[in-house]
């Protein structure tokens, strides 16, 4: 008979349990209650949502279709406060609902420090999407100040996210160093320094006394009298298991709801999982053990044998660019020894804590590649006395000679943990492959490895390569995508060497494993071909992302945005009038000044694009390629024309460069700026190519960016004349166009090939420079045409008009 299972709490633990139940084909009907007005999502990825690196949609684990497909009745937005274990009913807003089995998965509640002012508006916790949205709403105000109370895992992720949102952030932490539960003071210091470099202020040994404000929080007062101004305060000082419901229905609770190895509470028909439980005196705050609990609970519900044993967990901080790893016990003690490695220049710190020749604790900062290898030894209680001398150098040095990375993966024992979040070991991945999974994608779909926080993606790929053995020739570099094992570099080389001229030809000759490629490799191949054969290759529109196919940026509602070029940021009253007229004529909802010194018309209907472009063309404007993996903008400052510090005509040079470079396609977008003096008002030193004018000429800087990663440029050379600046610029651009992987910005490519290579080819070797520039200008003959004019003239008309209109076809 179908069991009716009522689940309270739609969080990470219950979501995983439902997956196990349905995967096993359990004969159950589930009613799922959740206090949040939404279903299950990957809570641990809220931090990338806060920082803007991910959208909420990307972290949803189960959507309405999934619930529908599995017959789950969802009751989101309902907070359950009472259960009657005798009648076996749950009290709901619509009256009592009976259950055969009840699963409590209510997670935990953020702890709020009981100080005066804690209830003021503007004070929040960090637990769910509403908190994230609340925090983001404060970030909208320019220069807004955020105070994060708590320098643990959660607090620091919040601080980094708020900083990424542009806020002025201060972290207040009670202990003497950050993340004291996971890090020792040395690693805590490195972390603090890193955060401070990013502009986050960190106050240690700071004890909150009071939150001040009249009808909104305005400041935090510390016990030592310091006052820190705040537009918002996020408290991330710890969590308490949410036991209220357990207590209310009379089942045994201490710190958490007490469960046995089968995840049953004292009432055999009530199970509990997740952060709300207490198992053998222990409570939980990371997902790995909860996933194990979810698996056990699913088995218990199906009447199968299973027992939960808490796994050893390790910690990582999900702040992009910060690498730390910790596990086990790292307190000092008389019976303990330690091995420490430091590389101050690189900011690397590694410490192993040993007791009786066994690793009992690990703290790593800056380079955490060997974390899983050490963790495995810790879990196994392995005697390390033999390789002790080289132990700290990690796996590559174990046994003397450095091993290649695949050998290292091969040497891992079967139980070695690959994905900590999902508890996926090497053996599980290999079993998935033995069970028929034939690609990385299939393995991750089956095992969930690398699908939660994603930090193990590289390692997962290596194990898959190992498991697929001869069927998967291990490439020196990872394959471009799932359709080929050839690396980007190999494909580029082979296209030129073999004279391949079309996408089907490349796919055929290089043994693509899919018939038509995928959305990753097709745009890359299209670019590689057009870069190699500018005069011959016919651009393949269907292999371009929509933006480059219709020459405008798609918006989230399917409309488009239009950005005309404004050479060097200079415009005229006539151009502005034409833009205003177009905005009126096509009912443009938003007109915005972009970060690239020009104007964006947002929200244009697709079918209006060609005629709007015709209007803009008529006023002398062309596409700004704001959508292109190609030449974007050349920002300038006012220079000698107006500025009292200007040393050269930065505006004029910027315009000349933009006129020379526009229309070019490249592996990723390419942005430039020209500043008139080292005050650098055009921000030239965070551009792909930046010119800083000085009295003796032009400094040429390369490899900057200010997107997901902020990179300052490196100085390539200084030249004396404008002509040289333009030639060097074209040569650099061409070297990048010919050498980089698709979707690598110049800085990434320079990281790979080294600045010396660039200097040699562009600066030192004059023949090479001339040849590069010549190839660039040759290619420009074919690409310097305004794509808007072409489309206004009728090209690709099918893109902008429907095939048929059946809105008038009435029923017969």
């Amino acid at each position, binding site marked *: 008979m179908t069991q009716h299972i009522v689940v309270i709490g739609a969080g990470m633990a219950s979501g995983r349990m439902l997956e196990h139940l349905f995967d096993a084909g359990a004969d159950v009907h589930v009613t799922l209650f959740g206090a949040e007005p939404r279903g299950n999502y990957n809570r641990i990825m809220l931090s990338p949502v806060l920082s803007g690196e991910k959208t909420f949609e990307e972290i949803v684990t189960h959507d309405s279709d999934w619930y529908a497909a599995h017959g789950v009745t969802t009751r989101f937005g309902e907070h359950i406060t009472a259960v009657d274990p005798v009648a076996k009913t749950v009290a709901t807003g619509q009256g009592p609902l009976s259950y055969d089995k009840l699963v409590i998965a209510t997670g935990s509640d953020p702890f709020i420090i009981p100080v005066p002012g804690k209830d003021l508006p503007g004070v929040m916790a960090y637990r769910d999407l509403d908190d994230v949205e609340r925090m983001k709403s404060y970030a909208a105000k320019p220069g807004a100040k955020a105070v994060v109370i708590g320098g643990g895992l959660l607090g620091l992720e919040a601080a980094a996210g708020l900083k990424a949102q542009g806020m002025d952030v201060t972290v207040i932490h009670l202990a003497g160093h950050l993340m004291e539960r996971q890090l020792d003071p040395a690693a805590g210091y490195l972390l603090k320094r890193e955060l401070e470099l990013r502009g986050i202020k960190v106050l240690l040994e700071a004890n909150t006394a009071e939150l001040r404000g009249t009808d909104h929080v305005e400041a935090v007062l510390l016990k030592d009298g310091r006052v820190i101004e705040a537009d918002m305060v996020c408290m991330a000082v710890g969590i308490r298991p949410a036991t209220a419901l357990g207590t209310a229905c009379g089942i045994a609770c201490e710190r958490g709801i007490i469960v046995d190895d089968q995840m049953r509470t004292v009432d055999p028909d009530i199970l509990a999982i997740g952060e709300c439980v207490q198992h053998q005196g222990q409570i939980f705050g990371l997902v790995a053990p909860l996933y194990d609990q979810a698996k056990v609970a699913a088995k218990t519900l199906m009447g199968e044998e299973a027992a939960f044993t808490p796994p050893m967990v390790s910690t990582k901080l999900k702040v992009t660019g910060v690498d730390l790893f910790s596990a086990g016990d790292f307190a000092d003690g008389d019976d303990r020894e330690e091995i420490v490695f430091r590389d101050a220049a690189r900011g690397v710190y590694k410490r192993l804590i040993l007791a009786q020749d066994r690793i009992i604790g690990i703290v790593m900062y800056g380079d955490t590649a060997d974390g899983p290898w050490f963790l495995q030894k810790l879990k196994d209680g392995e005697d390390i006395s033999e390789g002790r001398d080289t132990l700290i150098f990690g796996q590559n040095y174990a046994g003397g000679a450095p091993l290649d990375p695949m050998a290292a993966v091969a040497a891992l024992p079967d139980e070695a943990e690959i994905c900590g979040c999902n508890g996926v070991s090497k053996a599980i991945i290999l079993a998935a492959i033995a069970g028929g999974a034939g690609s990385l994608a299939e393995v991750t779909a089956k095992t969930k490895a690398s699908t939660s926080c994603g930090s193990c993606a590289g390692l997962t790929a290596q194990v898959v390569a190992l498991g697929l053995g001869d069927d998967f020739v291990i490439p020196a570099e990872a394959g471009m995508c799932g359709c080929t094992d050839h690396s980007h570099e190999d494909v580029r080389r082979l296209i030129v060497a073999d004279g391949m001229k079309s996408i089907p030809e490349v796919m055929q000759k290089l043994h693509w494993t899919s*018939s*038509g490629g995928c*959305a990753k490799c097709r*745009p890359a191949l299209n670019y590689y071909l057009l870069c190699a054969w500018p005069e011959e290759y016919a651009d393949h529109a269907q*292999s371009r*992302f*929509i933006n480059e196919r219709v020459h405008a940026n798609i918006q989230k509602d399917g409309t488009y945005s239009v950005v005309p070029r404004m050479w060097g940021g200079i415009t005229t009253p006539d151009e502005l009038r034409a833009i205003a007229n177009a905005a009126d004529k096509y009912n443009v909802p938003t007109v915005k000044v972009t970060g690239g010194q020009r104007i964006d018309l947002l929200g244009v209907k697709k079918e209006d694009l060609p005629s709007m472009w015709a209007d803009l063309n008529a006023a002398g404007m062309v596409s700004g390629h704001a959508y292109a993996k190609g030449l974007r903008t050349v920002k300038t400052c006012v220079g000698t024309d107006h500025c009292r510090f200007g040393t050269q005509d930065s505006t004029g040079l910027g315009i000349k460069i933009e006129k020379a470079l526009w229309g070019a396609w490249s592996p990723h977008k390419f942005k430039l700026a020209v500043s008139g003096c080292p005050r650098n008002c055009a921000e030239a030193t965070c551009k792909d190519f930046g010119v800083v004018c000085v009295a003796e000429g032009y400094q040429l800087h390369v490899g900057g960016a200010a997107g997901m990663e902020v990179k300052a440029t490196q100085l390539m050379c200084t030249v004396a004349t404008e002509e040289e600046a333009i030639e060097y610029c074209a040569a650099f651009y061409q070297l990048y166009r010919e050498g980089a992987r698709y979707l690598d910005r110049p800085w990434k490519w320079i990281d790979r090939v080294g600045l010396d290579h660039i200097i040699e080819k562009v600066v030192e070797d004059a023949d090479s420079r001339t040849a590069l520039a010549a190839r660039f200008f040759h290619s420009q003959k074919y690409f310097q045409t305004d794509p808007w004019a072409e489309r206004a003239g009728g090209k690709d008309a099918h893109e902008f008009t429907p095939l048929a209109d*059946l*809105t008038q076809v009435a029923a017969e």
Partner: protein
Amino acid sequence: MTRFIDIGHLDDIPTEGARVVKTPLGCVAVFRTAQDEVFAIDDRCPHKGGPLSNGIQHGRSVTCPLHNWVISLESGMVEGMDEGQVATWPVEVRGGRILMDVARLDQAMAAE
């Protein structure tokens, strides 16, 4: 019951491309594959409503332009780790003309 309507010629759609058919139930995306097969599915991604006709087509699948979900043109099912489905529309190619079954439209209009 079926009712096929002529919506255009095969060559009106570029190979590996798509066009839109407007209907009272919203837009339908009509795809032509490299092998000249034709498929029609609702032009709304089950994720956040992305216009699938604007995606990159590969094999018998399309990648949504907004967040890269991959949808099977044959079944309308979302592929890979994501879950969901788009409604499909029966289509046939006869003598180069594309015919689409609009019975669903008739039902919807009759229900009004």
